[in-house]
């Protein structure tokens, strides 16, 4: 009995995605990694193929597809060995805020270009002085007539340079309570006072444009607020569950890919007169790794099933986010170890994977925050 029931349509979708990635993404990955950004044209192609925002309802131009389509896309993206074409971030993390909380007008205006790839999205929560402590954000949104005026700075924003549309967390400075004073606004790139101030250089995710954003008297219509006033923090708390689940999917799929590549390497590579897969201390190591990856997969699939049934996954997804990301880092580390000196060569795709894995334990809520949430909801 499978935990997840993939239909023929799902399998066909997976085939289509895989073949598209093999033809149009994987061959360009090294170039994108070097240039530190993934071209907009690739996003546009994704849209043309119908690979973006598959969950958006048909009436707004999407497929109205179930969550398994998102899972498939995320898993196949991992096979490309890069992270820059961050479709899961766009489709399954950012756009759902508009679908779930946007006014009819916002949905009519923005969902269709998000589906087509004409608009790439990002979400901005973190600030230089507010990371794990999300409630302490200082970016302010002050009402002025029909507009709100935004001032502040955001950092470590994925898709920060490519984004055409941003979901921005800001607070009403007149509200003393940090939680009920927080709102989310949809801000278009090019709006006066919204500056993509700096592209950041980082250890991994090098084809992904991570940026610092600055807002100086940036004016957006009040109608760009999502949900009812003061609801920002709760919306984030709700949608962060799926964001973390997306991280788990990436972590488990990456660990599976690394393990598979390493098994092949160990079978083909000789040392001490035999394939290194035959060296005894490696054999147990390989079994230990395979066991961890399998545990991760079973845990993940069950979580996906629960999420699709609409169950509350807050405790499980917090546990899974810290465990699967740490598992993926361990696997990446041990895979390099098995490859010896070749492990540190950048010509080896696993070296990039090792650099890429490290951030999984940090973004979408650090693993320490995950443990804090889990323990709180366990009633302790």
């Amino acid at each position: 009995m499978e935990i997840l029931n993939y239909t023929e349509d799902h399998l066909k979708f997976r085939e289509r995605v895989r073949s598209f990635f093999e033809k149009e993404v994987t061959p360009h990955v090294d170039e994108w990694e070097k240039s530190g950004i993934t071209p907009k044209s690739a996003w546009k192609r994704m849209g043309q193929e119908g690979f973006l925002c598959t969950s958006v309802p048909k009436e707004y131009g999407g497929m109205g597809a179930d969550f398994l389509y998102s899972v498939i896309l995320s898993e196949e993206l991992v096979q490309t060995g890069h992270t820059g074409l961050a479709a899961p971030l766009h489709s399954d993390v950012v756009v759902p805020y508009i679908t779930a909380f946007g006014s009819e007008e916002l949905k009519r205006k923005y969902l269709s270009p998000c589906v087509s790839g004409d608009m790439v999205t990002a979400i901005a929560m973190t600030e230089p002085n507010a990371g794990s402590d999300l409630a302490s954000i200082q970016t302010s949104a002050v009402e002025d007539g029909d507009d709100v005026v935004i001032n502040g700075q955001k950092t470590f924003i994925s898709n920060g340079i490519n984004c055409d549309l941003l979901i921005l967390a800001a607070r009403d400075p007149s509200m003393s309570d940090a939680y009920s004073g927080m709102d989310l606004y949809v801000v278009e790139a090019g709006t006066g006072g919204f500056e993509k101030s700096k592209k950041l250089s980082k250890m991994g995710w090098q084809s992904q444009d991570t940026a610092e954003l600055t807002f100086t008297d940036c004016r957006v219509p009040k109608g760009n607020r999502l949900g009812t006033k003061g609801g920002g923090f709760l919306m984030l708390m709700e949608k962060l569950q799926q964001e973390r689940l997306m991280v788990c999917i990436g972590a488990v799929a990456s660990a599976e890919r690394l393990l598979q590549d390493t098994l092949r390497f160990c079978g083909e590579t000789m040392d001490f007169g035999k394939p290194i897969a035959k060296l005894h201390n490696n054999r147990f190591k390989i079994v230990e790794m395979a066991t961890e990856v399998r545990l991760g997969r079973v845990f993940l699939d069950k979580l996906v099933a629960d999420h699709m049934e609409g169950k509350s996954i807050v405790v499980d997804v917090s546990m899974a986010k810290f465990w699967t990301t740490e598992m993926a880092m361990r696997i990446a580390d041990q895979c390099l170890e098995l490859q010896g000196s070749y492990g540190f060569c950048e010509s080896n795709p696993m070296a990039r994977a090792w650099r890429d894995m490290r951030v999984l334990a940090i973004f979408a809520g650090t693993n320490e925050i995950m443990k804090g949430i889990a323990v709180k909801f366990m009633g302790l």
Partner: protein
Amino acid sequence: MDFNLTKEQADIQKAAREFARGEFDPDRILEWDHTEEFPLPIWKKACDLGFQGVHFPESYGGQGLGLLDHALIIEAFCRQDSGIGTALGLSDFGAEMVIAHGTDEQKREVLPFLAQGKGLLTLAFLEEGYDLSTFQTVYRKNGNGYMIGGKKSYVTLAGTAQYIVVACQVESGDPEVQSVFLLTRGAKGIEGESIGEKLGMRMVPMQTVSFHRVVVREKDLVGQEGKGSSYLKEFLHTARVEAGAAGVGIAQGAFDRALDYARKREQFGRAIVTLEPIKNKLADMAVRVEMARWTVYRAASWLDQKKPEDRWAILAKMIASKAALEVAHDAIQIHGGYGYMTEGQVEHFYRDAKALDLFMESGSIEKSMLGDQIAGRV
């Protein structure tokens, strides 16, 4: 049992630390790490001030100090910057083999040259894999001298070094007969090709070096013919202690940065250093740093006393390179998103720790060496 450094050692440690603090410019570090360049000007200055080759005999341009003194300098340099520290530590890779077994002429030619900052030495020993019991790089008798052919992998700084020590195996006869030669890097028939970008230790560019009918004089032989394998084994113990010292420095440097950041960074209305999970992490990190440090010091002192047992050197590299990796990993975590950014510096320590961990041999190879030794098969 006295765990204190001598006055002289404490002075060396302090001087190396001050030098590193004053001279290792963060902007140049980012640049060298990015472009994969050996930090030539810093190395020159370190030589001018007598930090390189302190453990060489005084008669050959050194200060006649021990491996422990040398290790303290490597540690201090790596603590300030993992890239510069490992690069300077490998600038005279193989020198201890020349000191132990080279002829007077070889020592007079090479050692002062290294200590005075005139050039670098490297050692070509690895091929594909970690198995050192048999080499594809071979030598044969050629008139009064020899001729060498073959290929060596992962040769550190081979594009910069003027001298190269090469370990090879006799072409015909007993495959266990290995010999070591000291050559100039520019000798006819020696060619290097970059192995390409690496994830860490980027200030130590490496090459695959091929030897095509390289004609070698008899006087280029290091020590006795056929003793190469034991020279290499003995040398690698020294190299492990040096790598261990680098590991201690990297771990300490990452720890310093994490502690500093945790004190400054405020979240939830207070410095994060006051939060229990952060304090616990710092405590775990401190445990690893101290375990590594005292194992490395012990191993260095053991070799300085010419004790034959080689377990400590393996322990030193194993414990210290893992400490560097784990502490730098945790240091990134304490820095959060900033830790993943190049600007935060700790990601550089983490990458260098990983490269150090895989350099020469991996932890699992060390574990099996140690296991063999404990079980009594070596």
